[in-house]
């Protein structure tokens, strides 16, 4: 409430001062118009400067958020292409590396992205976030079951399920492709 009152007071005072400045310019004799003209232009610069600064700041935040997401996606790509997730790699029991999503979380929670202009991107990032959380949870379950089984066969079963054509994991790879392509195009 206080913030709204201060904003109303600030912009109200500026608007009144602007109106008085323009009136002063109109009623002043021709030889004395330099002062009201300078006063009116200074007030106009003050009002537009507030909006310009806000716009530049938002743009900078958005760019920083997109850069962070690009880096995070590249890091996730390295993880998925690494030895741990290679279909022809070792089938032994192992702790898998996890996919990260901190940049996506920050971008979504900080309001850096515009709900109107970035509606598609926000939707894509929400889907990606859900997929990462799900795959990390499934990896946890996999490790738990593989490490508590006395048989190496269990590790092989999970390896086969992880890399099967219908695996959830293949969907995550496709979603990463889609997200990376979209973020790069922004």
């Amino acid at each position, binding site marked *: 409430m206080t913030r709204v009152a201060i904003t109303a007071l600030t912009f109200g005072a500026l608007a009144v001062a602007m109106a008085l400045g323009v009136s002063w310019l109109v009623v002043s004799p021709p030889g004395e118009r330099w002062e009201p003209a300078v006063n009116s232009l200074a007030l106009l610069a003050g009002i537009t400067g507030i909006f310009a600064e806000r716009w530049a700041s938002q743009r900078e935040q958005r760019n920083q958020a997109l850069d962070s997401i690009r880096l995070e996606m590249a890091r996730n790509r390295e993880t998925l292409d690494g030895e741990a997730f290679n279909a022809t790699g070792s089938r032994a029991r192992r702790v898998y590396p996890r996919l990260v999503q901190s940049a996506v979380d920050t971008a979504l929670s900080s309001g850096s992205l515009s709900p109107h202009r970035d509606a598609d991107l926000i939707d894509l990032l929400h889907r990606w976030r859900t997929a990462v959380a799900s795959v990390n949870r499934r990896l946890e379950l*996999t490790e738990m079951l593989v490490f508590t089984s006395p048989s190496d066969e269990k590790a092989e079963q999970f390896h086969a399920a992880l890399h099967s054509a219908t695996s959830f994991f293949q969907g995550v790879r496709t979603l990463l492709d889609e997200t990376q392509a979209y973020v790069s195009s922004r």
Partner: protein
Amino acid sequence: MTASDGRLVGDLAKAIDESDFAWSLVLVGEDQRDKLAALTGDLLGKPSSNGDGKQITSGYAYWGIGPTIAWAHACADPFYLVMKQSLDSFTRRWGRVRGRVGEGFHHVSFGVGTGHKDRLILEHLLEHNQDLLYLPVDMSSEMLRLGTREATHRVGPRGHRVVPVQLDFSITDNLAELRDLVHRLVGDEPVLYSLLGNTLANFDHDDELLANLTALARPQDRFLLEVATTEALSDDLARDAVEEYSRSRAYREFVTSALLHNTDLTITVDAVQFRGSVEGDRALKVKVVYQNQTGDDILMMLPDRTRVAFPDRDTIRLYLTRKYARRALDGIVRAAGMRKVTGTHSDFAVPRSAQGFGMDLLLLAPGDPVPAPRPDDDVARVIWEN
């Protein structure tokens, strides 16, 4: 047996062990004339354009020195993926399984092949049983000679403890005789039976054959089974399987060698065709056929000198193989009255090979069949399925 008979056997064993000459003692279980008659009968089938008439059944593809040499060449061909990958990855797969075999085993190997795999098995078994008896069983004496020499090269066992048996093990009565022979030789000591190299897939009635072979095993015995596998079944994958076999010229020469040596046909390897299909929910099936593409009806002379018509577009099925669905393996094992002690899988690590093709090595034991898993028991699938 008299004392003099016993002495004769002892002297024979001593002579084989002490000689530098490559003697091998082979037990021939069947009259080879009957086998030739059976082969002739198989080539008298009715005309068919899809390999369902005339055929060369599994054992005959390796019967005789010509097919045996062609087989050895095909195994050395880097384009014959199934065999190459099977041989390359067997050391690793056997390493994962052998710890569960136990000690004091003898070894009976069905279809000795090149002998490389049997050598690895013998090396391990000999560590725990120096008096091991090794019985490779095959329909082809030439294959036995080739495979046995490789299997026993530098690892032993002593010459008289190696008893190759020339026998068609797809015939049930033969197996009954073999069982009596093995049990007489080893008594109650355990036996490791093996059927490696995807040999099971070469038989029309593979399920029946596996049940007959595993029926030899007593509670103390184990059965080692190696099969080519696929993660999924589809017409596209059947085409990939066909592609895999058709790449190798040496393989084409091998599958036609039985025809070359038992008929007077002029063989061209270009007339070898590969037909892939999905066999129910259990396997991808590849039929290799030889088709008369000369445009004319021709006469073909068989081993007994009879001449039979080989009409234009008619086919002779040369070879049959499969890639079993990995999900169907448990059912196949269960239907044979066995339970899986352990198993291991190896994917084909070749860029052009279809995703999901590989080899599985299963160590089986007789006993109460394990109940079929309920769908919700397949935890890995449930967790990673979409």
